[in-house]
């Protein structure tokens, strides 16, 4: 078994309104920043032991499918690297 860190990034699907991001964008503009758009995402870092990088990715993928993301509104991606 090898120790891995799986990073799961969950973001709203394109086209789904993100009121919190819109509010954050307006606040940045109030501070004087110029920007075209802002998107927010949730990032989960999961430490786990697995036989291989693929096995770690598969488990993290299932975590995203079953809890971390809601498929109705979210897309997600999983990245795995060996833990330091």
């Amino acid at each position: 078994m090898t120790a891995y860190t799986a990073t799961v990034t969950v973001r709203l699907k394109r086209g789904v309104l993100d009121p919190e991001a819109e509010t954050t964008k307006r606040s940045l503009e109030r501070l004087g920043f110029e920007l075209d758009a802002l998107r927010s995402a949730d990032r989960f870092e999961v430490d786990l032991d697995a036989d291989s990088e693929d096995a770690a990715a598969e488990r993290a993928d299932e975590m995203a499918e079953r809890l971390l993301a809601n498929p109705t509104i979210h897309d997600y991606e999983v990245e795995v690297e060996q833990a330091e």
Partner: protein
Amino acid sequence: MTVSIIRFGGSNCDRDAARAFEHLGIDAEIVWHEDGLPADTNGVLLPGGFSYGDYLRAGAMAARTPIMNDVREAAEGGTPVLGVCNGAQIGCESGLTEGAFTTNASARFQCEPVHLRVENADTPWTAAFEEGEVLEVPIAHGEGRFEIGAERLAELNSEDRVLFRYCDAEGNVTDDANPNGSTENVAGVLGKGNVAVMMPHPERATLPDIGGTDGQGMLEGFA
């Protein structure tokens, strides 16, 4: 008929619901989620509140507690299940109903009376009303914006599974009457069998002493 009102850590409309059922003469009891669904359960109310502090997404954690397996099983057997507010979020998160309730377009918590148009009167939850009837019931939520993919939305409409839409006092479904940016003003939807979820609070519109009573007919779906 005993209605089980499922209490999760952070539920806060469970006692309101119990009072409302008492007023209507419907037998109901509050059930702690870890105790499982009682054998004599003939109806399930998923109450409002902030289960698990709305962590991750509203309703996400409660939807994955073991008792929800019991609730799904009961629902498949035809037991009436109604999710209100946080209970509606739990219903969608658990797959009992389609779609998702997410952050209001205003990005604010909104607590206010709204008008609802009855879209389908052929359900236990709306049998007391006529199709097109306009009701007044309060909302109190920060994550009530109904979202659903285009394909599923078309199915929902074609199968007549929209229960209520936000409307104005005359029953017009308009953008101005949409409090939270919900897709097509959807305020409540039907699942399979006798399952429904809705963001507005019928239990807060049942006792005559605290205002309107339009919620009574919805809760009488359990009678």
